[in-house]
C-alpha cells in the first residue's frame, strides 16, 4: 500500500480538439486575467508597452552613450535591435515565471474542471501572448521613428518570418509552461529555478549581442540548441535579413528542440494529471 500510481485520467476526446471546442471559454479566461492585472491601474493596458519601452531605452542609453559604443553589434539602429529582442523575451519570461503557479493558483478549478489539464498552463501562455501583442506597437513606434529620422531600418520581405517566430515561440512557451507547472506540483523549488531560466534566456540568447560576437571555435549550431535564438532571428529577419538569417539547418534544429520540449512537457503533464485532479482533497 505504499506506492500510489497516480494514473492520469482516461482521455475521452483529444485535448487539442477539446481546447478548440472551448476556445471561447479560454479567451474569456485570458481576458479576465488581463482585466484583473491591469484593471487596477490608472494607465491600464498601456503598462504592457511601458516595460519593454523603458527597458530598451535604458539599455540603449547605457550601451550607446555611457559605454560609448555598441561595439560588436553592427546592426543599426541598436535600440530597434534591442526592442525586437526584449518584447518577445518578456512573453517568454512571463510564461516561465507564472507557469509554476498555474495549478497552485487555480487548484480547485483545475481539479474539478472538465477542461484538459493543459488548459491551465495554456492560459498562462496566452496571457503572455496577449501582453506581447499589446507591446508590439512599441516596436512599430521605434521602427517608424528611426526610419523617419535616420532612414534605418528598412523593412524587407522577410517580414513574413515574423508570424513563424510567433508560432514557434508559442510552442516553446507552452512546452516550458507544461514542464514547469508539472514539476512545481511536487517541487516548490522550481519557482527559484524559473529565475535562473529567465536569466539563461536573457544572457544566452542574442538579445543584447549578435551571433557573430561568439568566437569561431564554437560551431554556430551549438548556439541554436537554445531555441529562443532561432526564434529571435525570425523576428529580426524583416530588418536585417542578411545578418541574422542562417541556413535552414539551424532552424530545423530549433524546431526539433521545441518539439522535444513540447513532447516532454505533455508527457509530464499527463503523468501528473491524476495529482492535479485530487489536489484539493
Amino acid at each position: 500500500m505504499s506506492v500510489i500510481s497516480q494514473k492520469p485520467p482516461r482521455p475521452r476526446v483529444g485535448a487539442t480538439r477539446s481546447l478548440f471546442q472551448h476556445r471561447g471559454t479560454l479567451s474569456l479566461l485570458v481576458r479576465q486575467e488581463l482585466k484583473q492585472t491591469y484593471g487596477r491601474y490608472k494607465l491600464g493596458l498601456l503598462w504592457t508597452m511601458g516595460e519593454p519601452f523603458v527597458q530598451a531605452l535604458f539599455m540603449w542609453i547605457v550601451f550607446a552613450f555611457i559605454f560609448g559604443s555598441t561595439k560588436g553589434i553592427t546592426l543599426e539602429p541598436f535600440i530597434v535591435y534591442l526592442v525586437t529582442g526584449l518584447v518577445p523575451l518578456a512573453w517568454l519570461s512571463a510564461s516561465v515565471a507564472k507557469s509554476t503557479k498555474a495549478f497552485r493558483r487555480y487548484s480547485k478549478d483545475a481539479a474539478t474542471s472538465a477542461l484538459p489539464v493543459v488548459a491551465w498552463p495554456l492560459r498562462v501562455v496566452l496571457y503572455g501572448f496577449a501582453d506581447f501583442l499589446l507591446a508590439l506597437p512599441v516596436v512599430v513606434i521605434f521602427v517608424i521613428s528611426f526610419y523617419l529620422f535616420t532612414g534605418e531600418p528598412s523593412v524587407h520581405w522577410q517580414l513574413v518570418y515574423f508570424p513563424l517566430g510567433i508560432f514557434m515561440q508559442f510552442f516553446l512557451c507552452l512546452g516550458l509552461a507544461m514542464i514547469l507547472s508539472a514539476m512545481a506540483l511536487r517541487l516548490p523549488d522550481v519557482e527559484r529555478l524559473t529565475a535562473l531560466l529567465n536569466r539563461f534566456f536573457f544572457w544566452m540568447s542574442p538579445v543584447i549581442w549578435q551571433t557573430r560576437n561568439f568566437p569561431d571555435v564554437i560551431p554556430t549550431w551549438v548556439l541554436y540548441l537554445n531555441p529562443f535564438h532561432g526564434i529571435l532571428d525570425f523576428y529580426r529577419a524583416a530588418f536585417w535579413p542578411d545578418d541574422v538569417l542562417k541556413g535552414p539547418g539551424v532552424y530545423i534544429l530549433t524546431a526539433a528542440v521545441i518539439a522535444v520540449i513540447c513532447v516532454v512537457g505533455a508527457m509530464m503533464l499527463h503523468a501528473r494529471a491524476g495529482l492535479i485532479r485530487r489536489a484539493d482533497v
Partner: protein
Amino acid sequence: MKRSNAGDGAPVVAQALMLTKVSVGVYTEKKRGRSRGRMPKVLGATYLDASWPLQDISLTARPGEVVGIYDATGQREALLLRVMAEILRPDKGSVKPSQRTAYIAKPSKKHVRGLSLGQSIHVVSGLMGMTDAEIEQRFDDIAAAAGISKKLHQPAEDVPFSLVQQIAFCAGVRMPVQVYCFDQTLPTGSQEFKPNCLPAINELRDSGAVVAASLGKSGDIRTYVDRGLLMTGDSVLELRTTDFILEVEAAKKKKQKQRRKARRSGT
C-alpha cells in the same frame, strides 16, 4: 438502457455506470519532525504520506436512478464523484462504460472575478465541460432559469454569489450528458432558488440519466435518492433509501456528539 433528453432535447443514451473495486490514493504533504541539534533542517523539510481514502468500492448506478453519497469525514465524497465523472482515473479498479459526464461543483469566486454575469455563464459552463457551441445554444435558457436574464451586464462581483451558484446549477443540469455528479450542490443558490433544484433532479431522473449526489451539509436530497452509499470509517455501506436516511441521521448525530465532546475537552 434509457434515453436521456437533457438540455435542448437532443437525445443522449445513458447506460448503467459500473464501478468495480475502485481505489484511489492521495499523497499528503507532511512536515518532518524537528531536526536534532540547533541547526534548522535545510533539505527535505516535508515528506509525502500516502493514504487510500477510497478502497475497493463497487457500485452500479442505473439510468433513471439517483445515488446519494454521504461520508462522515466529508472528504471522500468529492473523490468518488470525480471518479464517477471520469475526471479522476482510479488507481485500481475500473469505471465502465465511458460516457459523457457533468461534474457540478460549487464555483469559486475566482471563476467570475472581473466578469459580467453573462460572461460568467460562459466561463462557468465552459469549465464544466460545455463546448462553446453548446453554451451559445443554451445561453438564454440558462440565464432565464438562473434568474439573471435582466442582469447579464452586471458585474458578478456586485451581485450575491448565490446567483453564480445558480448559474452553475442551471448550466450543469442542461449539459447534454449521460451522468450527472453533484458535489454538494443539491440544493444550491438563494433560499428562493433552492426549491427549484430538487424538481430539476426529478426531471433528470425521469429522462433516464444517471445521477449521483453528495449530501454535504444539507440533507434535503436524501429524500430523493433511490439508493445511498454511506461511508463511515473504513466501511462503505450500500443502502436502500429509508435505511440510508436513518443511517445518515445517525452518522450526523454521532459526528455532532464527537464535535461537542472535542469542544468540551478543548482539543
